[in-house]
């Protein structure tokens, strides 16, 4: 009897103690993310244009309505889709190709793995600067030297609107393909060799072994890469900002950059907040769908 009566109080004491331990983390999280998030939602409902402060006031959904008719918004949304889609596809395809190749070389795999980590550990802004100042400038950039030597002529890699988009996609792919390469290499190396031997005896040629055995068996790894890299690509910022700043014009202005430029260049904070909310909604929706897809499989 005595025991059963003191257990609830002890349990309650323990729960209270757990709460105390949990509180600091909760507060930091709340102040750091939840509060700004609600502030962002709130701000998106206002007209706050620091260049025209006399127009400020509650706007309701006006900022969202304005977006529908804003060609620059649609342009940035399209660029976000292209940028995210192409960088993720490239990362997976090139990373898979490289991993399949590297798995075949008997020596030097460890060195290659270390080399692959290098781009990943660089800050994206450094990567953007590096490409802008060393690789892509016309006449003296590394890439231009190569194309000129090959007789393909000099190009303004970041100045030409079409080339600029290709360039920022390349930069992102260059930096993050090593990540997918390493993950895929690890999961390929962990595949049981006897299953492939069984497939050889069952008359599956190399291509069919790849399609019927390799791909399905590393699918979980690829799914995780796609999910993670989509989240990052959707909110990419620093590398593009450092390389092109969204330009020339709006040629590389993905939604994230448009929101930034609206808020901090044009000082239209209300509209910028609304753009950021849309980006957030898209990111959440995509991640929700991806996880649903992954669970279904």
């Amino acid at each position, binding site marked *: 009897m005595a025991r059963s009566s003191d257990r609830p109080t002890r349990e309650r004491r323990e729960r209270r103690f757990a709460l105390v331990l949990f509180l600091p983390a909760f507060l930091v999280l709340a102040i750091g993310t939840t509060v700004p998030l609600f502030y962002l939602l709130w701000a998106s409902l206002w007209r706050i244009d620091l260049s025209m402060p006399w127009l400020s006031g509650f706007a309701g959904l006006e900022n969202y309505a304005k977006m529908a008719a804003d060609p620059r918004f649609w342009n940035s949304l399209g660029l976000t889709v292209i940028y995210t889609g192409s960088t993720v596809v490239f990362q997976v395809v090139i990373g898979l190709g490289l991993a399949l190749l590297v798995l075949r070389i008997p020596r030097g795999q460890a060195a290659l793995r270390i080399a692959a980590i290098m781009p990943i550990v660089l800050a994206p802004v450094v990567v953007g600067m590096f490409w802008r100042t060393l690789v892509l400038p016309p006449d003296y950039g590394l890439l231009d030297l190569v194309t000129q030597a090959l007789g393909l002529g000099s190009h303004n890699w970041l100045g030409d609107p079409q080339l600029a988009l290709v360039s920022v996609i390349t930069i992102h792919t260059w930096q993050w393909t090593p990540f997918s390469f390493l993950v895929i290499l690890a999961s390929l190396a962990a595949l049981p060799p006897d299953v492939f031997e*069984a497939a050889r005896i069952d008359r599956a040629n190399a291509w069919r072994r790849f399609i019927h*055995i390799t791909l399905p*068996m590393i699918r979980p790894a690829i799914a995780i890469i796609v999910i993670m890299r989509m989240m990052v690509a959707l909110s990419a910022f620093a590398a593009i900002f450092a390389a092109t700043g969204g330009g020339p014009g709006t040629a590389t202005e993905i939604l994230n950059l448009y929101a930034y430029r609206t808020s901090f260049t044009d000082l239209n904070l209300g509209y910028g907040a609304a753009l950021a909310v849309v980006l957030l909604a898209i990111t959440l929706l995509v991640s929700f769908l991806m996880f649903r897809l992954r669970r279904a499989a």
Partner: protein
Amino acid sequence: MSAVGRVKLQGIVKRHGNVTALHGVDLEIAPGEFFALLGPSGSGKTTTLRILAGLENANEGRVHVDGADVTDVEPGERDVAMVFQSYALYPHMTVYDNIAFPLRMVGTAKSAIDSAVREAAAKVRIDHLLARRPGQLSGGQQQRCALARAIVRKPRLFLLDEPLSNLDAKLRLETRVELRKLQRSLDVTTVYVTHDQEEAMTIADRMAIFMEGRIVQVGTPDEVYARPASVDVAGFIGNPPMNLLPGRIAADRLHIGDHMVALGRDLGAEREVTVGLRPAALRAGPTGLPAKIDLIEHLGDTKLVICRAGESMVKMRVDKAASFRDGDDIRIGFDPGEIHLFERQSGRRL
């Protein structure tokens, strides 16, 4: 007897770096035979099987199947099926798709695949599990699935690498019998790797015994049991294997310690030998090799009396009714016809 599935290995040498796994293996297997590769761990059985399958290349030697040299032929082109020790099922496919895979790879028509899969699954009694994945099967069911995948294509050669070693003792005995029946009904040449001499003795038509990368004896289970070709084979075959005692022969006399036996045949000059005696061939009597009982093991319908004769340990199988006690002094008798003699130096049978 089937007409296809004749196997011939000629002088197969296999090296891994500076380790030589096989030192020149020669082997002939007749069509329809159930042939066991038997030997202790690391003796080169799996290596031989893998070379036969084409999964590994031999450094020297040729592989012939049905008269054709297949040494450089891809595994898929050899028309063989294999059951791996690990089963090597495709983990992401259902049992159905696992069994169907070899047929799909050769472009069999869909309807033909369906009936073949169901027939193969029914033969090994897993037709109720077709929708499951390998991860949802027990060890025995996985083994059956691997077997079904192997028989579905009706190959000319079955290769089985210790297919029963992951099963529990009871299931192993049952499956052994079924495997034997299955092979008879399919009439396909079967090469069966095992390190379990009892398994090989009960299941095989003939067997090859491997020791350290060499075949030391080929024969039917009866031949190998009756006339082991060397001390190594003698010490490997039988449960328990035969007792091996140091001895000396001179003309028609055999000396084991102070004990002397008349052999009834003249074996020439005096020399050192190893004497082999099966536990079941021994009996306690008024005369014979003097020994002292160390321990008695009860095996159900028989007893194993473990005793010490001079420096050596001797095991004797006796009826369960026999009354012995630990520490008894006995004399072990045997017929001269039950004696196996091996040259001490080379280990070869005399």
